[in-house]
């Protein structure tokens, strides 16, 4: 499938199957589960950013009436105990960030558990914290991990450092490319630590039964991943652990890992009672996984006609307390919107005394592409070329060699740029103190394993049993894809997200993979059902299955006048071989990259530095928009999160390494009242490797806003912006320095 085609059901703006439950409050989220005999678990967290734990005394806490169990790192029994994940969930002999979990206590009430935390005595040796990449990479920096040797050099260093990994990617001859350039622009750019800002805090309810059979109910983007990670830490067989994904109130990558679940299970095992644990907002900010802060340097050379001759970057990503930032994906994405022969990117993964970072929408890409897009805009300004024309001249397209390996198949960057150029927004005039920014963004999108069962009912309706938690309306998309394939009304299909015991393995919802990969599994399951339907009809008519056609939900005997509807075939299934059930268990390949281009107009108050976004347009290639409303919603949501990243959001730490703004009052995400309507333009360049052309749209939309907003601010104040966020004090400082 590569050509655009007409669809009967796909493209409809149907009502989402989970909509009524969510707007009426019936939907059950992580904290909504209650079990008989349930008790409450709470986490004791580090008051220091960096300290050795010399002794823990829980005796007074355990003596408190109502306290039923205490869990520490020593309760994690497996060979994988030293793994970073386990040491992030509960500290071993060292706390590595403010809020690092140390132990869990379960009690009959939440209040008693809280009181018990205050009764724990811990003897710390407080160490100097390392809060910034520059400090962490200094020769005399305190070490977070004294055994960490930098990986990625041909000859391994002989001494430990805070640099976990160094990575290099190159194409062509970057020095030769710079020699060809008429103009060269370079700059250092900073992006702060930011949080995904999901509304629902992490929460779980668990039960460890007498026979070791266990259940976890939790809000997560991937319940099979929760099962795997928890079982690994606790040394359990996967068959002993059932994980049920609750409804999820936002994740954006932050719920692709675990924090509470193993602790809760230990507490349940020790107490013999079900345990509920719910983070409060303070804990979410301090101790869940934010997005990396970065310090990135970019240099780009171009000819006066706009041909980019060389692109170079040095990228530094904070990993938080344990190695594993998305630096590598920053290296892979920084310059990928451009078809340029000469590129060189060097990346560093650096540990600091902050919470271990987690995925955040297009992890790693916004930070690297921010720096790259800012410099591309400066190049356009220097050579006096329209920034869209500059990008069109150098745009990645089918056949472009990427720095990370393959050449592109058909991609939609040029179409997005053309849509931007032709938009009313781009043609609109600006007033005094207003500026316009434009930026492009690239994300790979991914495939992976998805499993679906389509169980047909006797009345011809069906249940789509999937294993992908629904974050952004994916149930509706699954429903529409089943309808399109079966050629039956969407409302005939009821999608449900099953637990780990009732559907086969599915990778988590993330990376914009669900509509693409799980959608392919739905299509395969539907095809399996159609095949069975045709076989049953053929048996009834005493013809071969090849003589049976399927159209509009009806089996047609091409050798006669016979017709059997899906309902008639399913009603008679008991007499023709039993239940009709289709299966699609796949490892999807051929994910199609999605490019985005954003336009941002801002107005800056030169007296206060306050920035108002006055117009915003998000353009993105969806491949095919299965449910246009949810595609537009993804474009708008990504844009708003990116605007927040650009203009306001940042973790603020004191010199002592303590987080000073762990709440939505002081960590300011954009509200609806802060922003104009985010206009969206959905471009559709079909992905040849998906039956309906789907690419996936959840990630790319957060990439361009950083540079689009920051460049708009720089245009409005006629001064360069390098560091994010463009918050009032920082913008005012730039204005004052340049006035």
């Amino acid at each position: 499938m590569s050509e655009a085609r007409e669809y009967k059901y796909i493209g409809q703006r149907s009502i989402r199957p989970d909509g009524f439950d969510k707007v009426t409050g019936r939907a059950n989220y992580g904290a909504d589960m209650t079990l008989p005999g349930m008790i409450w678990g709470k986490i004791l967290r580090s008051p220091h950013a960096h300290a050795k734990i010399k002794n823990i005394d829980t005796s007074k806490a355990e003596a408190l009436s109502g306290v039923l169990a205490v869990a520490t790192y020593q309760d994690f029994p497996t060979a994988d105990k030293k793994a970073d994940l386990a040491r992030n969930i509960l500290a071993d002999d060292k706390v590595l960030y403010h809020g690092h979990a140390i132990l869990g206590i379960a009690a009959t009430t939440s209040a008693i558990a809280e009181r018990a935390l205050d009764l724990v005595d811990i003897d710390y040796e407080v160490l100097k914290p390392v809060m910034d990449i520059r400090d962490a990479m200094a020769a005399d920096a305190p070490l977070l991990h004294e055994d960490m040797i930098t990986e990625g050099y041909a000859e391994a260093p002989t001494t430990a450092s805070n640099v976990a990994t160094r990575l290099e990617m190159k194409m062509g001859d970057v020095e030769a490319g710079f020699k060809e350039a008429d103009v060269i622009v370079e700059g250092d750019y900073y992006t702060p630590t930011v949080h995904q800002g999901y509304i629902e805090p992490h929460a779980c309810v668990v039960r460890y039964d007498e026979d070791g059979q266990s259940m976890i109910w939790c809000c997560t983007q991937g319940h099979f991943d929760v099962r795997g990670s928890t079982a690994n830490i606790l040394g359990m067989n996967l068959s002993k652990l059932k994980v049920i994904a609750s409804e999820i109130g936002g994740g954006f990558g932050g719920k692709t890992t675990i924090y509470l679940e193993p602790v809760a299970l230990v507490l349940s095992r020790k107490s013999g009672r079900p345990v509920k644990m719910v983070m409060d907002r303070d804990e979410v900010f301090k101790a869940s996984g934010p997005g990396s802060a970065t310090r990135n340097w970019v240099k780009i050379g171009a000819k006066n006609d706009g041909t980019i001759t060389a692109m170079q970057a040095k990228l530094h990503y904070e990993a938080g307390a344990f190695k594993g930032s998305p630096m590598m994906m920053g290296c892979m994405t920084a310059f990928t919107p451009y078809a340029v022969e000469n590129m060189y990117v060097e990346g560093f993964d650096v540990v600091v005394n902050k919470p271990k970072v987690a995925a955040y929408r297009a992890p790693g890409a916004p930070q690297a592409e921010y720096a790259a897009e800012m410099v591309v805009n400066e190049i356009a300004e220097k050579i006096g070329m329209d920034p869209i024309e500059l990008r069109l001249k150098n745009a990645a397209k089918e056949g472009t060699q990427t720095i990370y390996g393959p050449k592109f198949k058909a991609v939609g960057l040029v179409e997005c740029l053309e849509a931007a150029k032709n938009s009313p927004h781009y043609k609109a005039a600006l007033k005094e103190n207003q500026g316009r920014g434009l930026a492009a963004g690239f994300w790979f999108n991914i495939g992976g394993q998805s499993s679906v069962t389509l169980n047909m009912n006797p009345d011809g309706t069906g249940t789509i049993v999937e294993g992908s938690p629904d974050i952004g309306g994916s149930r509706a998309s699954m429903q529409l894809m089943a309808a399109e394939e079966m050629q039956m009304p969407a409302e005939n299909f009821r999608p449900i997200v099953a637990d780990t015991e009732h559907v086969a393995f599915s990778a988590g919802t993330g990376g914009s993979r669900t509509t693409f990969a799980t959608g392919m599994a739905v299509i395969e399951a539907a095809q399996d059902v159609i095949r069975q339907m045709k076989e049953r009809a053929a048996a009834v008519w005493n013809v071969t299955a090849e003589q049976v056609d399927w159209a509009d939900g009806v089996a047609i005997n091409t050798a006669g006048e016979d017709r059997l509807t899906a309902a008639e075939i399913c009603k008679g299934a008991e007499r023709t071989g039993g239940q009709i059930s289709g299966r699609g268990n796949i490892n999807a390949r051929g994910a199609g990259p999605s490019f985005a281009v954003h336009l941002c107009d801002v107005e800056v108050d030169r007296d206060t530095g306050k920035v108002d976004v006055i117009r915003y347009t998000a353009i993105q290639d969806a491949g095919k928009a299965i449910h246009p409303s949810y595609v537009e919603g993804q474009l708008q949501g990504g844009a708003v999160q990116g605007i927040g990243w650009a203009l306001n959001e940042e973790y603020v730490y004191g010199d002592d390494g303590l987080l000073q703004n762990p709440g939505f009052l002081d960590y300011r995400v954009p509200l609806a009242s802060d922003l104009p309507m985010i206009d969206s333009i959905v471009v559709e360049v079909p992905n040849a490797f998906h039956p309906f052309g789907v690419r996936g749209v959840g990630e790319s939309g957060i990439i361009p806003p950083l540079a689009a907003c920051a460049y708009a601010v720089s245009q409005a104040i006629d001064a360069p912006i390098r560091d994010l966020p463009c918050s009032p004090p920082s913008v005012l400082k730039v204005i004052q320095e340049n006035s």
Partner: protein
Amino acid sequence: MIFSSELQEFTGEERTEVSATSYRVLIDVLVAKYSRLSFDQLTDLAVAIDGVIIVDPLLEPLSSDTEVHFLHFVAGG
């Protein structure tokens, strides 16, 4: 076969041509050809075969003129 910058440190060259009927065979051929490359090192990477990124391609068939790139796994948010 086209090697990433990282793998070039182990292969000493950017590209090579080998004969293999499947990805599984290709890995064995490469490990035999480049003594510093290991089976686990290669199977820990994703692969693009003729431009199509495939995760866990162990049994993937290959044909003549197939272009294979090793690349890092990509995880999303």
